[in-house]
């Protein structure tokens, strides 16, 4: 995972999020890798900015609904975002 800290906006923007080949598909070795990586970004946002923390990413088009359903992210233009309620939900789930 690679992310940038957009300090003026108190936001963390995830630039790249990947999982290794053996951890995708039905026979994946470990489950929840993407969720854990997202939770790490969410944790950094909360650590740095408290209740003002925010996380965004630009997913591949075919994955938009997946991010919305699984991580409660919402559409903000071409990006998907999560604010405090979603960040806290993710942290509780993956901490």
């Amino acid at each position, binding site marked *: 995972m690679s992310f940038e800290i957009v300090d003026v906006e108190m936001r963390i923007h995830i630039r790249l999020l*990947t999982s290794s080949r053996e951890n995708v598909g039905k026979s994946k070795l470990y489950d929840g890798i993407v969720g854990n990586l997202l939770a790490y970004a969410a944790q950094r946002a909360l*650590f740095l900015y408290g209740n003002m923390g925010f996380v965004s990413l630009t997913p591949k088009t075919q994955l938009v609904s997946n991010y919305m359903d699984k991580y409660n992210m919402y559409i903000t*233009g071409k990006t998907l975002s999560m604010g405090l309620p979603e960040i806290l939900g993710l942290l509780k789930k993956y901490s």
Partner: protein
Amino acid sequence: MKSQVKDFEILYEVMDSRHATFADKLADGKLILEARKKQMAQLSPELILEAGLIQLKLQMEESLKPEQTTNSYSFINFLQEYSSILYSDTDIFAKDLSIDSTFLNKVLEGEEEPNDELLTKLIAHTEHTFKNLINFKAAIWYDIYTQEKTRKV
């Protein structure tokens, strides 16, 4: 919908936004700002309190990491933060801790050292506060205090 999930499963690179254009970033920045304003206006005091406590927990844990060599974090700062998140009046905090309020105020102002009684009661208070919130080892107060003393030596 099913085919989308299938696509997701065969991709090993689940997202890559390194190549977004500047115009896209600018347009999305405005939309994100609007979404944030809307969401901030709807945040409940309970959620804000929760965020403050978890932020404090994360900062306390960070302060104990070996690579953390600066003095940007201190026991007193954390205690002041904990008190201000939960209480508007330190006398009520002292009452809840069953500690003399004058002594607590002096500790908060750095005029007195915290004693064992304060540390023990603070740990118990923190355990209770975080009980239904998130996993947190409240004895970290003691770890932070002793680490600070060790650094000074």
